């Protein structure tokens, strides 16, 4: 069962995933979008991903600590109870690459994800919900970092 892998450039079209050992599921979702991880701001990231201008919304939730003792491991969560969300993104405003993670939401999972991110410095953290109708909603929270998390 071979699927051809196509590299995405600046497009939001879907591509087939390569199932190299038959382990990867067949998804009609994007191959790794390296360009998205080079974006420096939410606005240009969302534009690249084909969403409209982001609007702050109380229906999207970003969770995280007020103060992170260790910027290498900051627990953050993004969620929304709104129906019709296609992707949930976690952004760290002052990181060299603003996008930390992009989750494709299916009907089988809640639109709610928690992970841990590295933060280089105190910064706003965003949860961005990209809706099926093209709307983009976000929530933000300031996370102060006492010890930056990018090593070096």
């Amino acid at each position, binding site marked *: 069962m071979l699927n051809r892998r196509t590299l995405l450039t600046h497009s939001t079209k879907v591509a087939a995933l390569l199932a190299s050992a038959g382990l*990867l599921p067949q998804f009609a979702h994007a191959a790794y979008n390296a360009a*998205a991880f080079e974006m420096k701001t939410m606005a240009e990231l969302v534009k690249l991903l084909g969403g409209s201008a982001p609007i702050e919304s109380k229906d999207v939730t970003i969770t995280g600590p007020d103060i992170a003792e260790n910027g290498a491991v900051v627990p953050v969560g993004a969620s929304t109870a709104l129906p019709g969300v296609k992707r949930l993104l976690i952004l760290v405003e002052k990181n060299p690459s603003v996008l930390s993670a992009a*989750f494709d939401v299916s009907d*089988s*999972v809640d639109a709610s*994800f928690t992970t*841990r*991110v*590295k933060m280089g410095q105190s910064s706003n953290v965003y949860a961005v919900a990209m809706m099926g109708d093209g709307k983009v909603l976000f929530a933000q929270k300031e996370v102060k970092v006492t010890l930056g998390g*990018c090593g070096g």
Partner: protein
Amino acid sequence: MADPMRIRAQMAGDKATVRVLMNHEMETGLRRDPAGKAIPAWFIQDVSAQHNGKPILTAQWGASISKNPFLQFSVKGAKAGDRIAVTWKDNKGDTRTDEATVS
């Protein structure tokens, strides 16, 4: 390739809460070694999960996800005994899949 993931999947109401701890350096490519040479980027880019073989989640990560990544999500319509599999693939093409049973 890497140590196994630790996956815990537990019923909470009518959904299963899945917590995964992966083993990976998640090197950003921005750090330098003591000699001043940049340590190459090495990080998980693609994550996917299946519930009883059916794909339920895909995610794309950047290098800013913490080392030994943690992920938590909630699966609708799961029940005890169901299988949850999680797969990751990194920028070097390494990949790993681990499975757990919902308790």
